């Protein structure tokens, strides 16, 4: 939902205004101010998670825990019922006179399938939420922006269609951003 504006607004080549800030705090402060001016499709880019960054972007609770719970429950019931079906119903197996449906013996594998499916759903759920792998993104058009994963603190503003970006550029400069630039998504 948060991505809606960024990803579906413009049918052709989106335009981003980028600005680099001195520190994480400066970026978080600027993020609040840019949002107050009505820009919603904004994002921060930093080498590590920013303190207070989620609130500054106005993000709600992450959906990852629910995805993990769903995966975990699927693994738990799926694992247990699989064993009940295979060893208890479809081919009852008598080992040392133990009952075909032997709950204590089924606990270890139930635990493992719970963890396995929860972990797989976290990992792939995360990739889906983050829309990664994404080989190309307009922000990489700027060579300076490559500092974002090393030592730069960047703000990106996705312009609404029809905007020339002058207001966003002026706002970022006014907030103390350096290396303010505009990048256009290349459409092939």
């Amino acid at each position, binding site marked *: 939902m*948060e*991505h809606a504006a960024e990803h579906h607004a413009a049918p052709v080549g989106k335009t981003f205004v980028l600005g680099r800030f001195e520190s*994480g705090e400066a970026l978080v402060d600027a993020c609040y101010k840019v949002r107050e001016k009505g820009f919603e499709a904004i*994002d*921060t*880019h*930093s*080498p*590590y*998670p*920013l303190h207070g*960054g*989620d609130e500054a*972007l106005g*993000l709600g609770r*992450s*959906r*990852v*825990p629910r995805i*993990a719970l769903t995966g975990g429950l699927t693994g738990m019931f799926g694992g247990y019922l*699989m*064993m009940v079906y*295979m*060893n208890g119903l479809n*081919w009852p*197996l008598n*080992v040392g006179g*133990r009952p075909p449906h*032997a709950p204590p*013996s*089924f606990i*270890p*594998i139930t*635990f*493992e*399938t719970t*963890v*396995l499916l*929860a*972990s*797989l759903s*976290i*990992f792939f*759920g*995360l990739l889906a*939420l*983050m829309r*990664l792998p*994404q*080989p*190309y*993104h307009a*922000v*990489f058009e700027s060579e300076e922006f*490559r*500092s*974002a*994963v*090393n*030592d730069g603190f960047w703000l990106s503003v996705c312009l609404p269609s029809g905007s020339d970006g002058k207001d966003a550029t002026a706002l970022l400069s006014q907030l103390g951003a350096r290396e303010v630039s505009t990048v256009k998504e290349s459409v092939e």
Partner: protein
Amino acid sequence: MAAEHAAAAVAADPLDSAPLLVGKQDNTTLTGNLLAHVWARPDKGWLLSFLIALSGSGALVLAITVTLAEGIGAWGNNIPVGWAFDITNFVWWIGIGHAGTLISAILFLFQQRWRTAINRFSEAMTIFAVMCAGLFPLLHTGRPWFAYFMFPYPSTLEMWPQFKSPLIWDVFAVSTYFTVSLLFWYLGLIPDLASLRDASKSPIQRKIYGIFALGWRGSGRHWHNYKVGYLLLAGLSTPLVLSVHTIVSFDFAVSLIPGWHTTIFPPYFVAGAVFSGFAMVMSWMVPARHFLGLKHVITMRHLENMNKIILATGMLVGYGYLMEHFIAWYSGNQFEWFVFFNRATGPYRGVYFLMLFCNVLTPQIFWFKKARTSIPIMFIASIFVNIGMWCERFVIIVTSLHRDFLPASWDMYYPTWVDITLFLGTIGFFSTLFLLFLKFIPAVAVSEVKELNEELQHRTAPVTVVTGA
């Protein structure tokens, strides 16, 4: 709160031996010096070690080929010693992996800041150790090309796996452990791969690291979900790591063999796993931090803390030995008592006393701060612990089996050259993978260290104000 105070006191407290980060660092210097070893050309030392490790891997291929061509008969296993080097090596390698998950997950949940510089390193060790471990039961099935029979899939055999067997529990435990460790490691690696991508000078490196970085751009919207996902994976890995060695110990404890059939096995195995794992991390970290120039992020504080854990888990293992013997005597069961008596006086007593020396006596040296902070002492002690823990698994497995219920069926186990080559080969294979890891991937979690650096700088400020007032 306690953790915050501890971190705040890093710079000020005279009782602290060493800081977590040496020198005044910022994001730019950390990017430079933590990635430096990836950009540097491999030096002679690395090439020589790699060559030796690669020959070890070659020996492994040879030993596997002989095993597959000739069958399990190429090994020294016999009746009654049906499990020997293979399962000893399996348990040893799996145990070594456990330190990685403990450092990356359990210490993460406890917010132990000293974990940050060493987690990447030990997680990599986990993955490689589990790869080596998995090889042994696979080969021991005799016909590994049918190993997929152990997975529940609908087949024309119309048979399902026997889920009441601990050996099948093991299949699920080890494969889950490997998968989850790999996902956790890779997830933590994504920001650093992006860092490599964007710090690289050559277009080829940029392209290759770019593929693995998946297009990561440090987005705040990504971090938002990423942090939660990482925390949850740590939360899941924590019970997982305990369950894996518990289930490995069930392979023994659920059987009826005297010496194996004991309820203390699960906690005792987990403690031993952490013990041997930390020792292995130490054995690699001491040279790696020297040669990769990482002494400013992997400081004496990290090494000392690890030595304290080695001491604590060593004591737990010692307690395990004590209880095992006490219960064997207290049970009044003559077979149970005989097994333990035989361990100390039988033909394998040398291995038994080596185990006691390495696992119980050696770690005691870490009561002394001088030993805890001495590089040569900790390195040698860690090698001893590695040897001792291998001996422990050998003692548990072979001495319990070789003199079973009927004296007429007693026999000795001696390893063949294939057994020994297979074991040494896995050490070579492990080293090969590890050296490649150290060459191509940052050995320290760069993004996490930067975050830690930021936190430390922020948290020290208020303390100086308080002490000043």
